[in-house]
């Protein structure tokens, strides 16, 4: 009773096996895949970069747009960031963090720098503020691929944010989505600087824990 031997070319059989595995640990697996794509990109592999683009461009553009609140400017900045990913991929060190984190950190940093330089010439005051701060979730996020998985992640992050105190959530949203410095956040919320720093830290730790962050990140 010998099992039917799998005679398919194994290199081609492999992706389906990976798909099956992804179903089991979608988030962790996707993260590991992005690490691999970025490492291949660092070796000059343009196909790997195209794969990386497809996986992350939506998050890069969405993050930048959220901070900048201007589609045209967001497109310009997102495009710069993605090229920067290509250019500096050889610097990525998987022992020091995830590809997703590396790329989205770069995107967010660029967006915040841009918004602050724009601030000098434009008064954003009427467009920001706690009362108007959007919930941290975008209905349009549902349009992107891997809908079910994203919904699940979204649910996990949403519940992690739901589990935060109001102060933790407001501090994080004002800083991350509005591009405020922690000093501005402290002033807006009327709390001491030390409190803001602690709330930011506690909130981020909660977010990271919520998605079962990896065993292997230092």
């Amino acid at each position, binding site marked *: *009773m010998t099992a039917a031997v799998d005679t398919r070319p194994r290199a081609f059989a492999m992706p389906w096996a990976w798909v099956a595995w992804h179903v089991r640990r979608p988030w962790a697996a996707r993260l590991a895949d992005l690490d691999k794509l970025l490492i291949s990109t*660092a070796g000059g592999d343009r196909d790997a970069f195209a794969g990386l683009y*497809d996986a992350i461009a939506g998050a890069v553009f969405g993050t930048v747009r959220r901070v900048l609140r201007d589609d045209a400017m967001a497109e310009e900045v997102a495009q710069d960031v993605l090229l920067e990913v290509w250019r500096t*991929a050889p610097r990525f060190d998987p022992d020091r963090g995830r590809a997703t984190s590396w790329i989205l950190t770069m995107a967010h940093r660029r967006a915040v720098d841009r918004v602050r330089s724009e601030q000098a010439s434009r008064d954003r005051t009427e467009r920001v503020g706690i009362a108007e701060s959007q919930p941290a979730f975008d209905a349009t996020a549902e349009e992107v691929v891997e809908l079910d998985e994203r919904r699940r992640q979204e649910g996990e992050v949403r519940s992690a944010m739901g589990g935060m105190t109001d102060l933790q959530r407001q501090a994080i949203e004002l800083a991350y989505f509005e591009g405020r410095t922690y000093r501005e956040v402290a002033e807006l919320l009327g709390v001491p600087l030390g409190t803001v720093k602690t709330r930011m830290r506690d909130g981020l730790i909660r977010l*990271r824990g919520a998605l079962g962050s990896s065993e*292997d990140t230092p």
Partner: protein
Amino acid sequence: MTADLHDLAAPYALDALDPSERGAFEAHLGTCADCRGAVAALQEGAAHLAALSAVPPPPGMRKRVLAEVTVTPQERDVIALAGRRRPGLPTRILTSVAALVLLLAVVALGVNLLSDPTTAADVLAAADLVNSELTATPDYEGGPVEATVSFSPGKGAAVVTFAGLEEVDPSLTYELWVIGAGEPRPAGLFRPGGDGRAQELVDEEVVPGVTIAVTIEPAEGVDSPTGPIVFAGSV
């Protein structure tokens, strides 16, 4: 002042420092491993916020970016142009072979000195044993099968046990893999006995959260998976 700087890890991860503080903190990061670790962890939390904001990127951006990429040099190339070339292939091969020989010698010595290899029985007798199910994937072509991974966090070791496992062609074998952050690591070959039973020590260090997977490979085994994954599960 240093204590104050440590506290800036979270605002830094949120890009919520003003330029002068950011500069000071980045200088501090160069010398403080604790803060580097904290920042990496906190940035991962922040990245979850970013991932949530995903929207479909503007049409046409993909084409433009991929076109730009064909004419944009990477930093590595810039470094290479500046004269820091990698050693030629023969040198690299020789270096790798030398390193491998040295590694094998050290490992052989270590094994001799310790002469206390963990066995499947040791693991199964561990007090902290945790059993989890390995799931057959659609690529597994046999009948119902019971597949378990028994993991001892204390020993950092695991054993897989199968009942009702389909035989494989003599030219093939089942191969175990430990999948963590990097490439899957090969962790031993096995075949079921005539009764469809198999028990195998996972021949790699196992830490909580890794995935244990089984593929079908050529009988001599391979260094990185080529066949379909037929079982997978986390410990």
